[in-house]
């Protein structure tokens, strides 16, 4: 289980970057062509393809950050990620499949805190030269999103 700590460390660094508002680092957790997709459990179960948010490749991920920083208007807010129950499986010498649970609390500037999202991360991770997400699918348990989803999950 030598890779276990590396994967858990990747998940933790990812969560802290988002929670610390270091959004510019977010694309760098993915491979150059890495895919990021937020979906709902309901759509997944019904086999429906439409995402809540979708990006393939670092340029699209960087566009999302650029838009959040320069175009989109939203009230100041922060997330707190809780990532747990990580399971992983070796696909081959270089790739790992991982599933992890998450909770995200959203904290507004007036102090209002809400359990904003819960769900699973379904990941495909390359190990070398450093662990990166080749694909990160975020399956939200609920179909319901409060007000807006600006910061990625």
């Amino acid at each position, binding site marked *: 289980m030598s890779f276990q700590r590396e994967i858990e460390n990747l998940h933790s660094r990812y969560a802290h970057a988002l929670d610390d508002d270091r959004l510019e680092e977010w694309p760098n957790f993915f491979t150059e062509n890495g895919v990021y997709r*937020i979906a*709902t459990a*309901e*759509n997944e179960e019904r086999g*429906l*393809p*439409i*995402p*809540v*948010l*979708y*990006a393939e*490749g670092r*340029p*699209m991920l*960087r*566009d*999302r950050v*650029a*838009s959040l920083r*320069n*175009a*989109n*208007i*939203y*009230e100041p807010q922060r997330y707190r990620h809780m990532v747990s129950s990580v399971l992983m499986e070796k696909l081959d010498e270089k790739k790992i499949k991982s599933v992890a649970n998450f909770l995200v609390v959203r904290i507004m500037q007036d102090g209002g805190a809400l359990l904003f999202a819960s769900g699973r991360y379904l990941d495909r991770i390359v190990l070398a030269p450093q662990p990166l997400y080749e694909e990160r699918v975020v399956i939200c348990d609920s*179909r*319901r*999103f*409060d*007000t*807006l*989803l*600006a910061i990625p999950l």
Partner: protein
Amino acid sequence: MLQKSWPVEGATRVPYWVYQDADVYQEEQARIFRGPTWNYLCLEAELAGPKSFLTTFVGDMPVVVARDPKGELHAFENRCAHRGALICMQSRGRAERFTCIYHNWTYDHAGNLAGVAFRNGIGGKGGMPADAKPESQAPKQLRVEAIGGLVFGSLSSDVSSLKNYIGPEVLPRLQRVLTRPLKVLGSYTQVLPNNWKLYMDNVKDTYHASLLHLFFTRFRINRLTQKGGVFVSKDGAHHCTFTEMVEDQGDAYEKGGMRSAGSADFKLEAPEILDQADEFGDRVAIQILSLFPGFVLHQIRNSLAARQVVPKGVDRTELHWTLFGFADDDAAMTRRRMLQANLVGPAGYISMEDGAATGFVQRGVAGAPERASVIEMGGEAIGSQDSRITETAVRGLWKAWRKHMSI
């Protein structure tokens, strides 16, 4: 009867109590949603085949939509005749009949009460009297009409046909999109911290689109300097606005020093998410259409969706998004719709702000029920215009609302 008075300025003012008052909310449930209007229920494509069903809402009222064994569409109140429990608790599925879990009363696909458990008692004991009329409290059945794959219901026997209700100004704009059998691509719910009418205001407000949604203007997708227009139905109730597929090269925003002005150093690295196929052959890039009281159809490039506005109290609204394509879409078109899903919904580049802005109004008007908003862009007119720097469609909403509410 509500004791409310409207500001003397008339069509150009909307008093803030309309978004705050619990009596107004109750009254509009009865007079509007359960009154002489057509309410969007679902897509026909969501009900695949005989005996399929789903649950939805008309205003507050829970509703079942079902196909009978012959495939005919029916809609009825999701409330058991006996004690008022939900008849159907699943969100969708297929059923031979509907059985209330509480006491096992059963209903057919049209919502007719088909069976009362132990109605005649057992062994001559118990049961209902012979002259009991449990059917007197049966769930209400809605009139149902479908147009281009969209299903609407009404509790009113007076309201005219759906096509007449929509009217000749807006109907062709609806039919322009609904050209072929639809295919559901996904759905989700956005919870808005505001009164339902603030969302409808927002949808009909062609003036805000390029000023609030900076993504549009930064990338010169939709600026008021581009060719477009707005259609409003004669009664003011319904509207449609559109923009043509021309990349705007003007600099009106930059000269005006507006927050939403473009910037040379802000470019998309992956602009292919915006690549549009002109699937309707008329070079329309964006069309937003609304039907009173709570339905929106959008075409944003190749993203297509039905949005159902479901009020959940004076200051809470659910927006049920159903994104769709056509049954004959090829893989390239499905991919476009998937990429352009990034533009819409709670995480949409160009729609995430709507929930924030309408919530800001709900919070901003606290303590000011007798003050009013100023809706004077384009003067007092209510009707179709070839400029989008107008609030004509917003005034139309209030004209229709006041007529229904007798205010």
